[in-house]
C-alpha cells in the first residue's frame, strides 16, 4: 500500500528538489541570490567582524623581517621604508614609460607619480576559511568612494587584491591569487641589490594557480633566487598599484616541458584570507572624467 506523506514531509521533499535544481542552474540565472545572501549575512556581519579582529589578535599575519620584540616605531619605519622603495621604483617605471613617449614628457611631471589617494581602512567581515584564494567581504562600499578596481594593500606596499562589484555599504575583495585576477606582469628584484633599477630587472608573467601562489616561467640563464621581491609592472592595473610588492620568490624549479626555462613559485607575503583589515587606495579625482586610473586587468 502506498504510504502518504505528511505535510512537513511534502514541504521537505519540495525543498530538496528545489535545492537540486538551484545547485545545477547556470550562474547567470542566480543573480537574485545576492540579495538573499545580503539579508542572511546582515545579522552576522558585526559579529564576524569582531571574530576576524579577535582572530587577527590571536594569530597576526607575520612579517618575517620583524621580531615580536620590535617596537611600534620600528614597525612604522619599516613600513615607511617600503613605501619609499615603492615610490622610487614607481618613478623608474614612469620614467621609462616617458622615454618611450617623449612627446608626453612635458605633460606628465614626475609629481604625478604620487597619485592623490585617500586611504580607507576596511575591516574584513567575512571569508571562507577553507579557501585561501576566495573573495573576502569588506565593510566599505561606494559610499566611501570605492569602485571596481580599487586597490587593497596591507603594510603600505603589499598588494592584496582589488575591489570588485562594490555595493553601497559593503564590497568584495578579489585577491591577486584568485584565478580570475588573471595574469599579472611583474619584475623580479634581487634581494641583495636594493639599488638595482627596476627597469633592469627581469620581467615575468605571474599566473595565479588557485592555491595561494603564482607560477611564472623565466629563462634558465636569468639569475633568480628564493627570497627575491616581485613588484608589479603592469599598465592594466591602476597607477596606485605600480611597483607594489606582489610577493616573493618562494621556490625555483626546473621546467619539465622546456629545459631552457625554469619556473618560479611566487607567494604573496600577506593573504587576504589571514588579515583583519586592509587599506584601500581610493583615488581622488577632480571630476568624473579626470582620473588617474588605468584600465582594469
Amino acid at each position, binding site marked *: 500500500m502506498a504510504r502518504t506523506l505528511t505535510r*512537513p*514531509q511534502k514541504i*521537505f521533499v519540495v*525543498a*530538496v528538489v528545489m*535545492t*537540486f535544481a*538551484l*545547485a*545545477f542552474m*547556470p*550562474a*547567470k540565472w*542566480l543573480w537574485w*541570490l*545576492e540579495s*538573499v*545572501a545580503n539579508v*542572511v*549575512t546582515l*545579522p*552576522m556581519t558585526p*559579529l*564576524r*567582524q*569582531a*571574530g*576576524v579582529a*579577535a*582572530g587577527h589578535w*590571536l*594569530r597576526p599575519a607575520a612579517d618575517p623581517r620583524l621580531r615580536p620584540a620590535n617596537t611600534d616605531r620600528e614597525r612604522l619605519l619599516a613600513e615607511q621604508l617600503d613605501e619609499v622603495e615603492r615610490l622610487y621604483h614607481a618613478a623608474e617605471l614612469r620614467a621609462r614609460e616617458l622615454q618611450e613617449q617623449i612627446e608626453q614628457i612635458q605633460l606628465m611631471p614626475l609629481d604625478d607619480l604620487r597619485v592623490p589617494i585617500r586611504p580607507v581602512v576596511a575591516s574584513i567581515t*567575512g*571569508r*571562507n*576559511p*577553507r*579557501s*585561501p*584564494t*576566495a*573573495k*573576502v*567581504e569588506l565593510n566599505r562600499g561606494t559610499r566611501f568612494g570605492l569602485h571596481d578596481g580599487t586597490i587593497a594593500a596591507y603594510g603600505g606596499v603589499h598588494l592584496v587584491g*582589488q575591489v*570588485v*562589484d562594490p555595493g553601497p555599504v559593503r564590497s*568584495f575583495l*578579489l585577491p591577486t591569487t*584568485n*584565478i*580570475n*585576477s588573471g595574469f599579472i606582469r611583474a619584475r623580479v628584484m634581487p634581494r641583495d641589490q636594493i639599488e638595482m633599477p627596476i627597469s633592469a630587472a627581469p620581467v615575468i608573467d605571474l599566473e595565479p*594557480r*588557485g*592555491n*595561494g601562489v603564482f607560477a611564472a616561467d623565466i629563462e634558465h640563464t636569468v639569475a633568480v633566487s628564493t627570497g627575491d621581491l616581485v613588484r608589479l609592472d603592469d599598465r592594466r592595473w591602476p597607477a596606485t598599484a605600480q611597483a607594489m610588492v606582489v610577493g616573493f620568490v618562494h621556490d625555483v624549479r626546473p621546467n619539465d616541458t622546456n629545459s631552457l626555462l625554469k619556473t618560479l613559485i611566487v607567494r604573496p607575503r600577506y593573504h587576504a*584570507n*589571514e588579515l583583519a583589515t586592509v587599506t584601500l587606495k581610493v583615488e581622488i579625482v577632480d571630476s568624473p572624467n579626470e582620473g588617474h586610473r588605468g584600465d*582594469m586587468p
Partner: protein
Amino acid sequence: MRWQVFLVVAFVFLVIDGGLMNVMQIELPVVRVIAPNIVAVLVVFVCLFASRLSALAGCLLLGMLMDLSLPAMAGEAGRNVYIVGPHALGLLFAGYLILQMRTMVFRQRVITIGVLTGVCVMTAGIVMTAIFVIRGWYGEGVVYPMQSSAFNELLRQAAIALYSGLLAVPLGWVLLQTTPAWGFQQSHQRRIAR
C-alpha cells in the same frame, strides 16, 4: 527538537566558522591551507539525537545558510556569484549517512561525534566536489573553491575531515552538555507518539 535552540546555535557556529576559524588554519604539503569545519559538528550532533525529518531538515537549512553566508565566489571578471546547493546537498547527504549509522554507535560518547564528524565532512566534500566538477563543465568562468584536480580536492577534504574530527571531540563534549535544552524526543517516546 526545539528549532529556536537550533537556530541560535547554528547562528553562533556560522559566525565562528566565517569569522574565527582562520586562527586554526594550518598549511600542509599538496593540499596547502586547511581549516576545520565546525558546522559539521552541529550536523552530527543533530543527526544523532533529533527525529529523522528534523535532522534532515536541519542539515539542509544549515547547508543553505553556509552557501549564502560565505563570501561570494568569483565569476568572470571577478563578479559575485552565489550558488545554493553545494553545502546544502553535501550536508544533507552526510546527514542521511549519519542517520543510517546512528543505531550502531554509542551516541553519548564524544569519540563518536569526533569520528562521525570526519565521516560527515568527507561525505559532504565528495558531494560538493562532484557538484563543482559538473558545474565546471558549463564553462561559466566561475572559480570554485577547490583544488586544481578532483583528486587533490578529495585529498584536501580528507585532511579537513581529519582536522574537523579532532576539533569535534572538545566541541562535541560541549554540545552533549546542552542536550536537555534541545528537547530531543527519545526513541521510545517517538514510538509511543506513533
